């Protein structure tokens, strides 16, 4: 009924230590994990080389403004990984722990209490893992030494008493480890004689609870439980609720849903329409509450048409860079929503919009050429040669002629442009199958996935037909590991390197987006699948179509084993139909960053018993 306060500072340091460590240890582990593992500095040599190549290509054409912007926003993440509040709290926390531990070890009162703890192993001088035999022999040895009858006669009274006490302790220790009843006592109460005196108290010094500091303490608790805690929880809750799983603001998502619900099929989708919708994103409003969607639309158009926005107002370019950089996640969220509405057209145009924004090129039939650097637009568009729309067609001409077509007079500039053009990855389909792991065909209600074998090649390379690639290079291993997880092999491919995108505000990696639709109703059947891993090694091969010759059906000097075959696997969201027959699917593999890098083909799924 009567509680003692912790006058001797015996217990409150332990209480405080426990409370601090409860939070500190998980936080420390989390921060260490972040620092060490969350880097993508775990890149392979090949990945680093490719990254360097594209970074070099892009740097030449990137304006100073954008480089500065990148320095500010890309590096911000790097630095903040080490110098942030959480790390500071961790360091301060551990320093405090050290202080507490030191205080505890210097506290005599605690030491005294510790001394009173009954430790039979220590008394008998044996280790904790000693066997029964060791216990017996240790007791025998010590009892011989300390037995009252065996004590020497010339010891003083005090020494005698202490020896006798010691003997009693030793006997008790032995019994605590061997005798059943006493052992039970020891295990239950920590002492062989049964429950010792226990004191209940409050692990806080008196001054905090009853003294002058007590109103402060009450205030502290009230603030913590009544104000700080609800505020933090509320803030976290609204933050979680405001963003969808794909990382876009819920208001943005509901705007897109509204647009698609009210979308009339009579309205043709265009990139301009999608940009109009994008400009209503809540994220932009949060960045710049003073600007309207019309402003954002204008800025996006400025970006695509490579107009300097600073002429319209101070610092508008920075505003433009920020919203353009944000378009990446908003467009991906929009793509997801379009897939939810099964709208193939909108999804296709969303990806076209992506390309336009990344390359800062309007969506025209000539975009493939206009994405190259140093192109003289007027000269190219008014050129007298047959209309050239594709990089592939461009590379049928010799370098000098290309210079004339693109209106590039400077040799160095031309070389650079050709270098960029030959490093834009083109994707060629070698083989496309519906695969059911462990089966040779697709059976009703099985779960097939789409397996694509592709060749990443340069527009400069001679076309390699499927017949030129031996089947052995396309076959996949049939071992158990592969059956268990057929998608694992995709992750063994290197990360796609950084894009050549000198007009995009941040460094980015390109990706391909796979859309699958049913030919029967022309609607998407599932959410888009992103491809982030493919080897670009083939791009550096010298296999110029202007020089390589054909010998009948074979290509002179072509060694298939020198080339890397890429694999794309698209899981299907639904099982094969119940009835046998043929179902046609349209597969669109579209690049998010480059024009001319797409695949669009039809696959037949033959469902057989």
């Amino acid at each position, binding site marked *: 009924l009567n509680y003692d306060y912790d006058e001797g500072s015996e217990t409150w340091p332990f209480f405080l230590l426990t409370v601090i460590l409860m939070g500190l240890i998980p936080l420390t582990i989390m921060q260490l994990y972040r620092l060490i593992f969350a880097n993508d500095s775990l890149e392979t040599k090949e990945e680093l080389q490719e990254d360097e190549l594209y970074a070099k290509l892009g740097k030449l054409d990137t304006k100073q403004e954008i480089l500065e912007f990148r320095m500010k926003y890309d590096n911000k993440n790097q630095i903040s990984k080490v110098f942030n509040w959480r790390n500071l709290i961790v360091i301060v926390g551990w320093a405090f722990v050290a202080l507490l531990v030191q205080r505890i070890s210097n506290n005599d009162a605690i030491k005294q209490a510790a001394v009173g703890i009954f430790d039979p192993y220590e008394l008998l001088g044996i280790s904790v893992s000693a066997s029964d035999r060791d216990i017996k022999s240790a007791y025998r040895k010590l009892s011989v030494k300390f037995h009252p009858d065996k004590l020497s006669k010339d010891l003083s009274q005090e020494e005698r008493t202490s020896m006798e006490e010691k003997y009693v302790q030793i006997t008790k220790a032995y019994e605590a480890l061997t005798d059943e009843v006493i052992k039970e006592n020891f295990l239950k109460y920590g002492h062989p004689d049964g429950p010792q005196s226990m004191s209940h108290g409050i692990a806080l010094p008196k001054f905090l609870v009853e003294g002058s500091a007590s109103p402060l303490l009450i205030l502290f608790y009230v603030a913590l439980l009544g104000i700080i805690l609800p505020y933090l929880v509320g803030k976290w809750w609204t933050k979680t609720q405001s963003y969808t799983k794909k990382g876009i603001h819920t208001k943005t998502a509901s705007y897109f849903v509204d647009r698609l619900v*009210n979308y009339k*099929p*009579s309205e043709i989708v265009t990139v301009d329409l999608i940009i109009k919708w994008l400009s209503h994103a809540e994220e932009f409003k949060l960045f710049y509450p003073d600007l309207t969607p019309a402003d954002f639309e204008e800025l996006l158009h400025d970006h695509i048409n490579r107009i300097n926005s600073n002429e319209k107002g101070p610092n508008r370019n920075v505003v433009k860079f920020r919203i353009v950089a944000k378009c990446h996640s908003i467009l991906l969220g929009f793509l997801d929503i379009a897939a939810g509405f099964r709208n193939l057209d909108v999804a296709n145009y969303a990806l076209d919009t992506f390309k336009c924004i990344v390359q800062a090129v309007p969506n025209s039939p000539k975009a493939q050429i206009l994405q190259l650097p140093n192109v003289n637009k007027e000269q190219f568009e008014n050129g007298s040669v047959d209309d050239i*729309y*594709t*990089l*592939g*067609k*461009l*590379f*049928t001409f010799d370098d000098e002629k290309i210079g004339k077509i693109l209106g590039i007079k400077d040799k160095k500039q031309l070389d650079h442009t050709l270098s960029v053009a030959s490093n834009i990855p083109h994707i060629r389909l070698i083989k496309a199958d519906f695969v059911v792991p462990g089966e040779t065909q697709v059976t009703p209600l099985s779960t097939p996935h789409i397996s694509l074998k592709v060749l990443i090649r340069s*527009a400069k390379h001679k076309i390699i037909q499927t017949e030129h690639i031996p089947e052995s290079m396309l076959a996949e291993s049939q071992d158990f590991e592969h059956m268990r997880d057929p998608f694992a092999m995709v992750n063994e491919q290197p990360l796609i390197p950084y894009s050549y995108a000198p007009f995009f505000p941040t460094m980015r990696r390109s990706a391909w987006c796979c859309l699958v639709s049913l*030919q*029967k109703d*022309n609607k998407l059947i599932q959410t888009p699948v992103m491809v982030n891993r493919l080897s670009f090694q083939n791009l550096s091969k010298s296999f110029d*179509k202007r020089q390589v010759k054909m010998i009948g059906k074979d290509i002179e000097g072509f060694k298939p084993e020198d080339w890397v075959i890429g694999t794309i696997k698209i899981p299907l969201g639904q099982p094969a139909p119940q009835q046998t027959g*043929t179902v*046609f699917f*349209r597969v669109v593999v579209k690049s998010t960053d480059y024009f001319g890098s797409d695949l*669009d*083909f*039809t696959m*037949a799924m033959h469902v057989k018993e």
Partner: protein
Amino acid sequence: LSYNQNNKQIALLDPETETETPQTNIAQINKLTADLIAESNPNFTPQPKEEASKLIKNLFETGLKQIKQNKLPDALKSITLAIQMAKRKRTSYEAFGIQLQELQFMLRQKIDLQLLLGKFVDALEDLEFLLGTGMASNDVFIRKTDALLKLKKFQLAKVAAERGLSLHPNDTKLKALMMECNRNLVEFNG
């Protein structure tokens, strides 16, 4: 909403704030109202009106005659007029199935004329309309692929041919068009 007692039409009180859907709904209601008011027969049915059918048929047959006489631009005009006549004379409560079939029938003729006369974008849009009404027959895809090829949109032509072949796998004309698309694409991509 406001209601006009004289012509029995409704209108939005504040048209600026409303989105398109309510405006469309109101326009529909008003048209229906106007049609009903203009209806003189108290026992009207969804049967298509004889009078209108005659007018439309006349214009259409004029067009067919002009085709036989090889006056293609005139034929196109006649058939376009026939379609416009249908839109004007037919009321919204006449059977939808019949109106749709009538329009589809006339459009097919119109599309063929447009293709012959080199109006490929017009033909393409009419074909898209037919596809949108659920008409996915092989001739629609054949004509769509053809129009796109003539417009040099080889990739889009291939997409149309592929869809056509998915729905009509044995159609020889589509197969031939597919080969033509591929031939053109090879050239297009260098």
